């Protein structure tokens, strides 16, 4: 926070509270734990003042005031339970109830309905209305996923304002007027937003309900577990709502620095992952060419025996492991430990983007700013990323930034849902994100548009970089990519003049044909235009899956140990593990699939899905293919042994999201009978191999990570609290939400740049890296 603000002190119901100027009475009362009932107000949207539910009495005012629209003034004296307030609230509730149908017994919202709750606490005991209620056909579908019961609607406009002001998408609108007011959808503007489920949660009554949740439970039958959504790399905080061991929905559990209390429809309603009848319920062993059910004991023994066999005939280097971007940090850690310490190989990797190798003590390729920081950016440039579909809640934050005036450029091959709101769009041919980014970098170097400390102090490196790109130019690269060079140059200029630009690219865009240099080109672009090291400026990848970053951090890499330690620096780890570690780099993902290994251990990944026919043939030719999975995937179908695993709702652990917040995932239900959590399976295999692992729970694994992985040094379950912690965990500086941040920590930022980019941390002027593939 900037300057110290004078607080305003007011009295509510005889109790004093001091709050910053501009605070709404509703918020001030909340700080005293005084409930002021609200319908139209929503803390994440502008006050509306429509429902007239939040009345309070302010001394000196003849009429009751709405607490959601009245800001504090010094020495204000407020009453929330005076006779005037009580009568006014009863009046509003009586009005709301005259047209409300009596279908509470079959209403999905019953039990978590604000109309029920506030009537109980603030309402009249009965009604004086003995005339005719308004009637509508009920319910009507306002989208494929959401139903509307207009009779139940209290016209608070939360849903409509969410669509318009927060999601900024087509959707629900108010129609007609007066008592005929209804919510509806315009014919030519369907309500098909990925954010649509939020209106169901926000609707204070049962007017908007979810098709998938209709009539399936009463809210009080739900077991609610605070956890983190595992359906994309954003890591929204959720309550997993389970009834009789079936997940019915995820509900928001507001974390202001990540999700602000919103979820996307995938997170909210995609329960197939865990509820599907197709889940594997027993280990399978290939016998006579077919996968047949087996006991866990048989399966684990078989895995151990066959792994040992391959090791003794072909050596440890004939064994490889492909880990998961979905499983927890603890599981990723145990997986590589099993491969490295247990089986003696560095052949471990996962499906990930291409980032330049890091040097000694390098810091990872991460987004240097944060989700919340997007709101501070003057510019956001999206390179080859479709945030709407891939990281929807980041997309929602970008929309909030747009509302605050941020200029967004969508630089993608395909049109996106953000185009309509963007300051500009640039299209190019599929697979050319790298070329386009290089075209921007080339424009910055050639015009030149460089500015700031970094560029000045490293003039020689900048010149070298310029020379290394001399053989090409923006126009040639743009033509190659099928993009508009003029637009790219204009964008480069805007980036170079921005107060703060955030440049984001999709992790997987680095896998495209021109993607090899994407990550470093974009980092250089940010550095050379001085869009770095400040809030609202920065760069980084948007990761693919819920724990893509965690998988890297935990060492699912053939050439680096957990926390990106070099293989050569593995002594401490080896000592702690009581094992010798292989010191040569292992095979990477592609090499393993290209026939490099005889035995492949796959945890929570489906390489067959993106495999070429040759790779498929290699998979089938393996001596041993072990697969830990929820479903009989294409890879599992080819396995020697399939070990049934569980989904994130069924286990404990931590995930690291795309802005590198480490958050706690909690077990919300019993594991599917017959299946086991990946960490349990790994322990089972380790012990079948005679490794004597004694972890009793993921908590103990996390503690080991905190001890042995410098990057996660000091991490603990308690320290992670309810909302997680963003790495670096111990930096002195913190953001507005009190979390440490890279942006606020110039030292770390520069260290990262100098290690991560230049691999030279000794203070001498570092050379900028050569673009991959350029001759040096």
């Amino acid at each position, binding site marked *: 926070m900037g300057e110290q603000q004078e607080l305003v002190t007011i009295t509510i119901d005889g109790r004093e509270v001091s709050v910053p100027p501009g605070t709404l009475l509703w918020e001030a009362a909340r700080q005293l734990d005084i409930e002021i009932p609200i319908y139209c107000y929503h803390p994440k949207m502008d006050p509306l*003042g429509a429902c007239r539910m939040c009345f309070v009495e302010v001394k000196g005012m003849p009429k009751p005031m709405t607490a959601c629209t009245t800001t504090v003034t010094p020495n204000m004296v407020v009453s929330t339970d005076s006779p005037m307030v009580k009568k006014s609230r009863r009046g*509003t509730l009586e*009005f709301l109830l005259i*047209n409300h149908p009596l279908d509470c017994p079959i209403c999905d919202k019953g039990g978590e309905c604000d109309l029920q709750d506030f009537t109980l606490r603030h309402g009249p005991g009965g009604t004086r209305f003995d*005339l005719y209620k308004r009637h509508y056909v009920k319910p009507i579908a306002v989208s494929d996923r959401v139903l509307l019961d207009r009779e139940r609607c209290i016209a608070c406009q939360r849903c409509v304002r969410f669509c318009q002001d927060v999601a900024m998408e087509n959707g629900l609108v108010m129609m007609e*007027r*007066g*008592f005929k007011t209804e919510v509806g959808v315009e014919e030519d503007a369907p309500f098909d937003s990925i954010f649509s489920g939020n209106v169901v949660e926000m609707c204070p009554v049962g007017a908007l309900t979810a098709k998938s949740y209709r009539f399936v439970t009463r809210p009080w039958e739900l077991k609610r577990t605070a956890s983190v959504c595992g359906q994309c790399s954003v890591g929204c905080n959720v309550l997993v709502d389970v009834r009789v061991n079936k997940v019915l929905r995820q509900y928001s559990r507001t974390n202001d620095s990540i999700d602000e209390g919103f979820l996307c429809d995938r997170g909210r309603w995609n329960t197939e992952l865990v509820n599907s009848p197709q889940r594997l319920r027993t280990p399978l062993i290939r016998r006579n060419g077919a996968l047949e059910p087996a006991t866990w004991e048989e399966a684990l023994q078989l895995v151990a025996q066959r792994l040992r066999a391959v090791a003794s005939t072909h050596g440890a280097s004939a064994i490889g492991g492909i880990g998961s971007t979905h499983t927890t940090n603890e599981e990723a850690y145990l997986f590589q430990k099993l491969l490295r310490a247990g089986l003696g190989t560095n052949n471990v990797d996962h499906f990930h983007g291409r980032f330049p190798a890091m040097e000694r003590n390098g810091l990872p390729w991460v987004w240097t700013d944060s989700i919340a920081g997007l709101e501070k950016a003057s510019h956001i440039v999206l390179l080859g990323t479709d945030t709407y579909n891939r990281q929807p809640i980041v997309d929602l934050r970008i929309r909030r930034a747009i509302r605050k005036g941020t200029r967004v450029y969508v630089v993608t091959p395909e049109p996106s849902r953000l185009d309509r709101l963007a300051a500009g769009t640039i299209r190019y041919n599929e697979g050319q994100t790298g070329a386009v980014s290089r075209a921007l970098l080339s424009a910055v170097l050639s015009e030149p548009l460089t500015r700031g400390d970094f560029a000045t102090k490293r003039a020689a490196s900048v010149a070298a970089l310029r020379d290394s790109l001399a053989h090409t130019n923006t126009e040639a690269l743009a033509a190659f990519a099928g993009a508009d060079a003029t637009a790219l140059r204009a964008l480069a200029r805007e980036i170079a003049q921005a107060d703060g630009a955030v440049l984001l690219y999709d992790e997987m865009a680095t896998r495209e044909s021109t993607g090899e240099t994407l990550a470093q080109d974009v980092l250089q672009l940010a550095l050379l235009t001085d869009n770095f090291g400040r809030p609202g400026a920065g760069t980084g990848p948007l990761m693919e899956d819920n724990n893509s970053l965690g998988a890297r951090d935990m060492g699912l890499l053939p050439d680096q140990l957990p926390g990106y330690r070099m293989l050569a620096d593995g002594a401490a780890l080896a000592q702690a593990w009581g094992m010798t570690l292989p010191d040569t780099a292992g095979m990477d993902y592609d090499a393993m699939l290209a026939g490099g290994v005889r035995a492949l251990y796959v945890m929570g990944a489906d390489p067959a899905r993106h495999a070429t026919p040759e790779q498929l043939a290699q998979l089938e030719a393996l001596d041993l293919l072990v697969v830990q999975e929820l479903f009989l995937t294409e890879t599992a179908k080819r396995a020697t042994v399939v070990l049934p695993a569980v989904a994130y709702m069924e286990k404990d652990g931590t995930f690291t999201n795309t802005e590198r917040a480490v958050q706690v995932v909690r077990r919300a239900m019993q594991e599917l009978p017959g299946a086991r959590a990946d960490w349990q399976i790994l322990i089972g295999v380790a012990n079948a191999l005679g490794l004597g692992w004694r972890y009793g729970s993921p908590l103990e694994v996390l503690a080991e990570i905190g001890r042995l992985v410098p990057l996660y040094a000091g991490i603990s379950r308690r320290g992670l609290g309810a909302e997680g912690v963003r790495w670096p965990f111990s930096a002195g500086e913190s953001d507005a939400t009190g979390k440490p941040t890279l942006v606020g920590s110039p030292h770390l930022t520069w260290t990262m740049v100098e290690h991560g980019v230049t691999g030279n941390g000794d203070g001498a002027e570092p050379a900028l890296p050569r673009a991959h593939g350029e001759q040096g």
Partner: protein
Amino acid sequence: MSETPGTTPANNSLPLGPTPRFLTRNFGVPGIDRIEVYRQHGGYESLAKALTQFEPDALVEEVKKSGLRGRGGAGFATGMKWGFLPKDNPKPRYLCVNADESEPGTFKDRVMIMEVCPHLLVEGTIISSFATKVHHAFIYVRGELPLAERQMARAVREAYDAGLLGKNILGSGFDLDITVHRGAGAYICGEESALLESLEGKRGYPRLKPPFPAVVGLYSSPTVINNVETIATVPAVVEHGADVYAAYGTEKSKGTRLYCLSGHVERPGNYELPLGVPLRTLIEDYGGGVRGGRQVKAVVPGGSSTPFLKPSQLDTPLDYESVAAAGSMLGSAGVIVLDDQTCIVGAVLRMTEFYRDESCGKCTPCREGTFWLVQLLERLEAGHGKESDIPLLADICDNIFGRSFCPLGDAATMSIVSSIKLFYNEYLHHVTAHGCLVGPRARGVAVGAGANV
């Protein structure tokens, strides 16, 4: 006429005689809606005077001095409103002329100004824009007034053609564009902030205030909103000077107003009279008294949003303060006279239906309350009501009044609350005799009937 209505006795040497015609001077002149005729009759001379003899700020002062108050309903001092515009806001400023005239009983803006003498409003708009340093003004015409809209649009076109609009008006260096916008038919769009929403192409919902339009108005820019009559009065203030204008009316209600007289009178119509003219003078001397020689039962003095006055209050002077002291409001000066054969419950039902249908639906008390009130009144009027319905009506009104988002909700309660006070027995008669006390559908014996006054 034996008396000079609306003048203080001390003030007997009035510059323009007892009943000046600041607005209606040219009423009845054939073709006055065309620019040539209007100019032949002195039209646009005030504009020339304003542009040549005044600095904008001096004009604001002049309007302040004239004591001109808003004619849209609330009677807010016009010059003071103009003075609220922030001096240092870099955004453009706008003037919106509120021509949404929809208040039941009100037909002055439409008939006397827009249909008959549209150039008066154009002239007033240009002068007012000059005074407030506005370069784009909007005239928001009610959707149901196609003729008024056509007349205004033509007058604006003529003014452009004559160099009175556009760039460098009359060589003064002052630029102004006027856009005539026709609404889509909603009473609420006469409420100034809903009008702005509507102009911006949004639903006609009133906005939360503060911020007030003077600071954050049309397209979030500083905006003045004035009624048609208010703006049309400005040329007269410039022509005659503030002092002459302020010589009329009462101490706090200066000048003249267009009184719209309707209901059961012999000669309904618009009358321009000084503020403070007694209600009785208006009804009897100008309106020719109650139709068919009947008695007055009640009068609505300022459009349907104002409480009833009773016959014993006929001597109330029609100025803001006196009508307020009598328990009602001068409002839009839409004076509706009800004769003694009017069923008050029926009349109130009609008025309440209007508010139910015109409620924008944004806030709960107005949206749901008017729906309930109408049903209760229907039941009472039809003779099926219960005695408890009468206090219930009053209590519903109490839950609407002062609890709604905008004044429309309050307005909906006025006729009900005041009629229950004045005519309780008539409501009761509907319960006990199952029908009206008076009028063509009267039923049962009138016991101590009529106004309980």
